[in-house]
């Protein structure tokens, strides 16, 4: 998927760990880990709202769209 998450970058900037964020916004570590690894299929507005509120950032700081390069040589 061309959407990537920069949660780890924002967390590093805020000097916060994933566990800490998990405790503060009441979302399980397992779910945050899925989001951090970019394996999530969808993200709820409420989750995004909680993360942005806690990390004091915009949704665009967490999510980024990167166009996939076409590797097909045909």
């Amino acid at each position, binding site marked *: 998927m061309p959407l990537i998450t920069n949660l780890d970058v924002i967390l590093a900037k805020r000097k916060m760990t994933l566990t800490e964020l998990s405790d503060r916004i009441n*979302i399980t570590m397992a*779910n*945050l880990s*899925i*989001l951090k690894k970019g*394996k*999530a*299929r*969808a*993200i*709820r507005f409420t*989750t995004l709202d909680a993360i942005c509120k806690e990390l004091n950032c915009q949704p665009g700081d967490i999510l980024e769209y990167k166009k996939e390069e076409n590797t097909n040589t045909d």
Partner: protein
Amino acid sequence: MKLTFIHVVDWLLKIIWFFQMIFAAVLIFSAVAIMADVSWMDIEKIKGFNISFTEINLGDVQMHDNQTHAVTLTNGSGRVHISGMDSRIVGFKIIGAFMELLVWMYVIYLLRRIFAKLKVGDYFIRSNGTTLRKIAISIIGISLFLNTFHYFISTYIYKHFSIEGVILKRTIELDTRTFLFGIMLFVIAQIFIKGAEIKEEQDLTI
């Protein structure tokens, strides 16, 4: 260990699997014995084959009124034994039985795979749906192709078999019940797969 319904069915499947193995071994053993033309095996006994007939004319039969009447047997089936008949017929029969057995063994194998997943608590997963779909396709295949195969075998047999006054029936009979069961299972499998996909999506929604 707590004995649940799943464990009971799993054991039943194991027993069926065991008997299928025995049946397969018997079929292979019989085929080898026929090919080797062994003296201790009475091949004539297994040369009997099922036929369906439209009409068997029994001729004039004397009835209770001491008069003779023309008697005809219509629309039935039975097993015919003819001594000294071509051994290839037995060969065809064994091939047919072996093919059918292989497909049913595959179905039981797939069912056992599903039950292995159920035993460890993996109920609503995509692979269970795809296995269920494979079972449905196999059952549809059994209902369609095995009957066609049996039709061709009977065509071969009927070519070499003619008795005066007997009209044999030779039609491809679709096993409607099995076919519809297969279709139903296929639809259920497709719904299951879609459901498992939705669940997967839900699990990965943060």
